[in-house]
């Protein structure tokens, strides 16, 4: 690590980058972080990492941006690794050995050498840089699997039950090595360019800020983990009202406090507060192709809500609508399986395969109108892209009149509402439509939607 003199600047830079990624860091936390640096010293980089994480972060999901940002402001080293750039064959040999031994320190050194030897591109100071993609493309660590397996089996005898786990274990080590290469390439680039810029641009956003519609597989998996607590939170909010409603009992404590004015004789029993109505939930979910990333996510939310809360009815549609509540009964958290069950078990399309909100919503109002009553909160989850067909506003008006509330969550950014075949603006005049592109937005919505 560099001289302690630059530490304050580094800390400020790190905090700035975290804020740019949506992590709320106040001045109090920054002061604590500085005290942590003082208490821990700079000699051990991993202690420093943990100390800063403990003082600056407030939640588990934030760690995914913290680590790469930390690696930029408190890098493992400066400049190129010592020695001649290694050639590819030699790197692969040593990488295979390190993977076989699961030697973390060696893997980190090899990542640095690999980026140095294989990852550089360009020759002019403006356009050159370091690429993890190019490094991995040339090194091809994934092709070492068989070789690594061979040497581990040779070493351990290749017997025993756990041997069948070996391939997956090696794959996870290779995956981790790819991460090390990415970290190293970012570090090298940041040395040449503006570090603050790299920390903002080249570090992937936290899962809760990834657009549903554009999330890749890994991000979806990560999102899955953020949905469960959100659904629980929503369910708790709903359940809290139920619980209070159920208690009509005497509050002894408050009764006796009240009795002070009557000389300690409890004349007026104080009843625990009683709240009315038990809310019911109806979810209408667009599961068409245009919102596939979103509907995967929707299904997770729906499944989780269903597990938490008994009064939920779920309907799925493309251009026909069908009730799918029964398909959710298995209580499994696997959106792919659920989507497949829905597609095979429900009638969602008629003559053609593209979505038609007008027909689907009309069918809902007609066939399932009695699912909606004065206690029902209806959520519509979809992009309101109706392929130029009639949006069927009377059907929506009808639902809105019967329900307690209707919320429409649209996974498209607001600027796109009304473009092309989007009927979002006309629907938004009838019911409350909100942009819901990311788990974070959903979290805010959940927090604000239902009064506690």
């Amino acid at each position, binding site marked *: 690590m560099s001289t302690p003199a630059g530490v304050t600047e580094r800390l400020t830079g790190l905090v700035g980058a975290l804020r740019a990624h949506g992590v709320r860091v106040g001045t109090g936390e920054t002061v604590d972080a500085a005290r942590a640096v003082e208490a821990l010293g700079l000699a051990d980089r991993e202690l420093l990492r943990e100390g800063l994480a403990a*003082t600056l*972060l407030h939640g*588990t999901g934030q760690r995914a941006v913290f680590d790469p940002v930390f690696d930029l402001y408190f890098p493992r080293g400066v400049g190129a690794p010592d020695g001649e750039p290694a050639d590819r064959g030699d790197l692969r040999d040593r990488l295979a050995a390190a993977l076989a031994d699961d030697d973390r320190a060696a893997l980190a050194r090899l990542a640095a050498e690999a980026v140095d030897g294989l990852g550089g591109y360009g020759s002019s100071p403006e356009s050159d840089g370091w690429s993890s993609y190019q490094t991995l493309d040339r090194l091809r660590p994934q092709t070492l699997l068989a070789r690594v397996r061979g040497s581990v089996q040779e070493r351990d005898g290749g017997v025993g*039950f756990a041997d069948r786990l070996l391939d997956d274990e090696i794959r*996870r080590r290779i995956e981790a090595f790819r991460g090390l290469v990415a970290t190293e390439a970012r570090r090298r680039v940041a040395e040449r360019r503006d570090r603050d810029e790299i920390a903002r641009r080249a570090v992937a956003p936290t899962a809760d800020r990834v657009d549903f519609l554009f999330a890749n597989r890994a991000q979806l998996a990560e999102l899955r983990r953020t949905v469960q*607590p959100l659904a629980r939170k929503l369910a708790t909010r709903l359940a809290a009202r139920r619980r209070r409603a159920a208690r009509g009992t005497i509050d002894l404590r408050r009764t006796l406090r009240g009795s002070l004015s009557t000389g*300690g004789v409890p004349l007026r029993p104080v009843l625990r507060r009683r709240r009315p109505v038990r809310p019911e939930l109806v979810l209408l979910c667009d599961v068409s192709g245009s919102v596939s990333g979103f509907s995967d996510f929707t299904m997770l939310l729906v499944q989780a809500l269903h597990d938490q809360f008994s009064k939920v009815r779920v309907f799925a549609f493309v251009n026909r609508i069908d009730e799918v509540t029964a398909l959710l009964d298995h209580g499994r958290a696997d959106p792919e399986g659920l989507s497949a069950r829905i597609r095979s078990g429900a009638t969602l399309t008629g003559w053609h395969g593209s979505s038609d909100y007008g027909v689907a919503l009309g069918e809902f109002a007609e066939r399932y109108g009695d699912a909606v009553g004065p206690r029902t909160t209806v959520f519509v989850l979809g992009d309101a892209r109706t392929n130029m067909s009639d949006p069927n506003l009377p059907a929506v008006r009808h639902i809105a009149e019967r329900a307690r509330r209707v919320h429409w969550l649209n996974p498209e950014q607001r600027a796109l509402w009304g473009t092309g075949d989007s009927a979002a603006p006309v629907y938004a005049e009838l019911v409350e439509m909100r942009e819901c592109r990311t788990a974070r937005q959903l979290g805010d919505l959940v927090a604000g939607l239902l009064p506690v």
Partner: protein
Amino acid sequence: MFPSVDDVSARLAETGYLASRQVATTVFLAARLGKPLLVEGPAGVGKTELAKAVAEVTGSRLVRLQCYEGVDESRALYEWNHAKQLLRISAGRDETWDEARTDIFGEEFLLPRPLLTAIRGAEPKVLLIDETDKADVEMEGLLLEVLSDFQVTVPELGTITATRKPFVVLTSNAGRELSEALRRRCLFLHIGFPEEELERRIVRLKVPGLGEALAESVVRVIGALRAMDLRKVPSVAETIDWARTLLELGADTLDETVVRDSLGVILKHQDDVLKAAAKLDLDSL
């Protein structure tokens, strides 16, 4: 409290708690900065155990507030012993109401609960607020108040300020998202599943009779299960349970039969058992 991070690790290890570098560093800082420690993480990774271990190594008394749905001030902070007060009043000594009132709102009739207990008295204490996420939102307001100033106002007695701040550990399973305000008061620690090497050491420490090779296999299988998409992946608690079971079964290596017969110890849902059996190539269950 602790001179160094290594000292934290060493002393916790003496009580049977094996801390990762991350855990040791954060405990060290919480003690050094005098801030409450919010520990989050899946069930069974040793969150509660950590607080107990810290109490033990620092010679502190452990004061535990177990949160649950509906826990309230009277359970968390203090309560007046109403029955006793009523008795005292109806005993009807020869005195004015004012005199009686002063008397019944005295120390003798006070039932201190964990939060009050933790800030009174001069002995060192560790306050464990366990499963904070289970409490209702209203409870958070109270916690915030107590954790900000370490003082509590009892209307009838006045304000009680801590003469010695307790070391505070809050645990949460993320059942309910805790408020930003509460999080800001705390140092944050996420305990995940341990690295293989650490988990091996935990197993060997908790189940001393288990051979080294078997401990390694156990941890590897557990690692494989955690990588699967299961409803509930096994935690450290399950690793230990499984190791104990294997010891009782007298197994000295893992084989298909042993794993198949004991999978129920690690996995709690039948569909998880089936899924894992398929992925581990166990013949039909």
